[in-house]
């Protein structure tokens, strides 16, 4: 029986495995019914409390292309112990693999392994756009954009990549990812130890020569950091030159509005603002990080924007992953408890465009497409059908809709799999009940008031005491180089 009025807490973990550093955060969410007593309950996260922040660890690598999985596991195990938390207590959260680490050979495999081991419902996430979005939420840029109409770009620069996410009024306007980071040139005893491929190409394009073993203060190094700052300014202004292409990872900047304010977060921002100065100084990273931070601060083109200090620097992404990824479903839903948690369910969006009859006449093709998109080999990869822009539904409309859904779901390659429905409007309970009344043979997971789209993946956690389920919406695209 669901008790909507009890104050409930859940523990969330965030783990960020980046190019140069790995960190972890444990927080506690308070959930409450925020609707009035005479209303249908609405459960929301009303408070977030950070219980434990780990130190910043060096990401353990086996070699240049392989992550040391055992090393990462060891960090997580010992940090959980220090925080006094057992993996079984973690009820939600996300492990995100960011920057260059996401290009490592065993990234995907390790991510899923970690998400299984480190908590009951810890979600695996990756993707350059998502990194920027999560960092913007952790650094405070997202909240700041809700205050008074400014267009704010959050630029999270770590070891390997700069992830830009642009927000206005808490709406995402666009993203862009660049090869700008501290670890792209590494030093050892005052000499160049490693140069990452995109930087090698950049140097070649621009007619500079830098070899392994050259001195740390070579003019080419200074050229690289200055070029990065200058190129970043051009990208922010959407003035992309041919010479900048080498630093772009993925798509070009895709926001339309001019940027007013820039916020730097990530390890490079730490070099600018020294938020963690009172902590034990992290080891000397021996790379271009500090020089890059200086180049950014001194760059004239970047001065045309107003600058704002982030609330978190190096921990922005992990904070975002730990505290900003979980959503709470509507309170009136229908879920089969035995089927939960469900992980990595791809979404197929079906838009009714406010017309039920017209929508139902094409829904069959939609499911065919979903199957061909996600389960082309007919191996039984299930998907969630997202019903958006439904018109106002009367009871008889719900019956018609439910019958159509049963029919199309029976055409899946493995029709016995649970029927997973996500509904934009508040209709999950009645649709779920109608399906139950039709005595469908499949289990039903029917949730609402979550916004997703085709290409997203969702993870649905165990039902909480109040009957709601935590949901994490994410992408799972790895960097391609």
């Amino acid at each position, binding site marked *: *029986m669901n008790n909507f009025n009890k104050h409930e807490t859940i523990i969330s973990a965030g783990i960020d495995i980046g190019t140069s550093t790995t960190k972890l955060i444990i927080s506690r969410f308070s959930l409450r019914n925020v609707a009035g007593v005479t209303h249908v309950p609405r459960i929301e996260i009303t408070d977030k409390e950070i219980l434990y922040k780990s130190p910043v660890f060096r990401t353990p690598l086996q070699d240049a292309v392989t992550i040391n999985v055992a090393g990462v596991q060891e960090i997580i195990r010992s940090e959980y112990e220090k925080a006094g938390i057992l993996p079984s207590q973690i009820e939600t959260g996300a492990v995100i693999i960011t920057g260059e680490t996401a290009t490592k050979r065993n990234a995907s495999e390790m991510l899923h392994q970690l998400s299984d081991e480190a908590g009951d419902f810890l979600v695996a996430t990756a993707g350059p756009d998502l990194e920027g979005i999560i960092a913007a939420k952790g650094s405070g840029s997202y909240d700041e954009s809700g205050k008074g109409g400014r267009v704010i770009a959050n630029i999270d620069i770590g070891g390997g990549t700069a992830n830009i996410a642009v927000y206005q009024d808490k709406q995402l306007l666009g993203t862009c990812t660049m090869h700008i980071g501290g670890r792209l040139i590494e030093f050892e005893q005052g000499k160049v130890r490693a140069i990452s491929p995109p930087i090698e190409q950049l140097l070649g394009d621009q007619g500079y020569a830098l070899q392994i073993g050259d001195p740390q203060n070579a003019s080419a190094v200074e050229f690289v950091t200055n070029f990065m700052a200058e190129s970043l300014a051009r990208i922010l202004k959407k003035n992309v030159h041919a010479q900048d292409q080498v630093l772009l990872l993925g798509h070009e900047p895709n926001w339309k509005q001019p940027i007013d304010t820039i916020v730097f977060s990530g390890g490079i921002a730490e070099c600018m603002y020294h938020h963690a100065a009172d902590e034990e100084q992290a080891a000397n990273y021996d790379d271009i990080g500090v020089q890059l931070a200086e180049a950014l601060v001194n760059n004239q083109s970047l001065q045309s924007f107003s600058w704002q200090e982030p609330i978190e620097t190096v921990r922005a992404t992990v904070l975002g992953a730990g505290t900003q990824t979980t959503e709470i479903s509507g309170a009136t839903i229908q879920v089969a408890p035995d089927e939960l948690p469900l992980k990595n369910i791809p979404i197929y969006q079906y838009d009714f465009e406010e017309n039920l009859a017209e929508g139902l006449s094409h829904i069959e093709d939609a499911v065919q497409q979903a199957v061909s998109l996600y389960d082309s080999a007919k191996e039984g990869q299930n998907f969630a059908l997202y019903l958006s822009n439904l018109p106002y539904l009367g009871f008889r409309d719900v019956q018609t809709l439910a019958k159509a859904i049963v029919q199309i779901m029976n055409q899946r390659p493995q029709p016995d799999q649970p029927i997973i429905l996500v509904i934009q409007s*508040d209709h999950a309970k009645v649709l779920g009940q109608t399906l139950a009344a039709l005595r469908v043979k499949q289990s039903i997971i029917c949730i609402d008031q979550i916004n997703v789209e085709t290409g997203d993946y969702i993870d649905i956690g165990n039902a909480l005491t109040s009957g709601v389920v935590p949901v994490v919406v994410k992408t799972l695209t790895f960097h391609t180089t």
Partner: protein
Amino acid sequence: MNEELIQQITKMVVEKLEAASSGQTTHQTSHEQKVQLFSQQPVGNLAAETKQASPSGVVTFHSTTEEVKPQRTIATVKPKPTTAYGKPKPKTETKQPTADELAEYRKKTPARVGVGRAGSRPRTNTWLQFRLDHAAAVDAVYGEVPDDLLERLGLFQVQSKVADKEEYIRRPDLGRRLSDEAKELIQQRCKTSPVVQIVASNGLSAKAIEENLEDVYLSLEQSLNNLNIEMGTTFYVDKGRVAVMDEIGDVLKPDVVVMLIGERPGLVSAESLSAYLCYQPRLGTIEADRMVISNIHKGGIPPVEAGAYLGTVIQKILKYEASGVSLVQKEG
């Protein structure tokens, strides 16, 4: 004047204004004569003008029109804003919300916010819309539930002790009692001691019943069927009040009464329905033992979803054998 005529004219004007404002986004001043009695642009501080405490006790007036400075020859001594120490106060910046922001606010509420004004009065279309909404509210109270709806749902009709609408409004106590014929009729036609007795009543909005009863009722029925909870014989009370459920409880002895009743109409919606629930209501039941799910209409909780949710609420009432405040206490 003829009531219908007024309605017709009002409707025509509203339509015309709507057509005009959707066709052109710019200010529609082209056909109007330019009489600049009041500024066409809102001036002054839209974000609530706060009273400034002035220690000297001088009353200050806030202008609602633009001041034309050089023409003022009369010495209007405006006290400079001062602090208690006579130092000029730093000007606090109050940002004027932009048109986009106002549109954002309007999206979040059906209330009449950010609708602008003409001089010191609401704009004509805002005012007419307001009158229309008020008229709809009045109509909802005086309207009747169509018979074919009750027939379609198989509900029979009984009366409260109230004779007509005027008496219904003046005498809430009579709306809380069943007429003698009603008592007899429900005794004859209804199942006694059912687990759940559903009752519908127009209450203060016949429109609420007309628009929402079918969807809520059918959805609730399905929900109770799914949960294997027995239902009694549903009927309709004309001109009932919520507490009429007490007398119904006395006559039929159900475990739970669900009363679907039209809410007092407001200016946002005139067709909002409430579902009142009570565990074993009897004459003398206190109000704290009743509970309600309100705001059931197109713009609120979708009626079909409300019906589905009511089933689980009833399940909970039956489990704890309590409703209202007692239920919250027992639930802990």
